[in-house]
């Protein structure tokens, strides 16, 4: 991604497919209020095995967040308030409208890539799209 920084924009849609990931998604969005979204995002994947099977993962997530310098009281209050629920639901609706049934699903411009793919696959598709954009600009 870094090599295409000026030419490519990544938009992340954390998609909650079950109750646990809904908590995790709200947690990440709440961390965004502290300008720590990407840190929380990384942490959720890095420590996934420590929380993803728990029936109530929030307590464990708050412990992990505390270790990463986030304001856990504010995080807890934010998640418990449910203020991020509309955003989570909006993304779920958007994903449904795009007929996304599994994750990861990635769109590179309008090209849909479903499932795990190698970095080389993504780089190839990005290059093709950049070349297409260049051709369109020349015309």
């Amino acid at each position, binding site marked *: 991604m870094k090599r295409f920084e000026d030419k490519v*924009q990544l938009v992340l849609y*954390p998609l909650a497919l079950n109750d646990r990931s809904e908590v995790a998604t709200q947690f990440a969005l709440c961390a965004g209020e502290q300008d720590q979204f990407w840190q929380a995002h990384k942490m959720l994947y890095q420590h996934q095995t420590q929380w993803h099977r728990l029936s109530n993962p929030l307590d464990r997530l708050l412990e992990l967040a505390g270790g990463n310098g986030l304001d856990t009281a504010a995080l807890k209050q934010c998640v418990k308030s449910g203020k991020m629920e509309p955003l989570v639901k909006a993304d779920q609706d958007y994903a449904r409208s795009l007929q996304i049934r599994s994750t990861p699903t990635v769109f*590179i411009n309008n090209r849909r890539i479903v499932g795990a793919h190698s970095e080389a696959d993504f780089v190839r598709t990005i290059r093709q799209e950049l070349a297409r954009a260049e051709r369109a600009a020349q015309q």
Partner: protein
Amino acid sequence: MAKKSNTRNRNRSTKQPRGTAPFTRQRQRLMLGGVALLVVIGIVVGIRMSRQQSLPPQLQGAIDGHYTRGSAAAEVVIKEFSDYT
């Protein structure tokens, strides 16, 4: 002499099909099965490709209040839908 050779040929021609007919039918069945399999594989690959490359109209008009990386004026936009679990 010519008559003799004719009867020999006739004998040969009547014997050969008896032995090869089941083999030919089996071969035809195998070929038909192969063609059917290729058609099925072609349909599956076609469906997969069309799903991967079809243009969802909603994507073009999407409004993002989302976390992003990279330039907002980028020529290529990557939208990643991922689940944390």
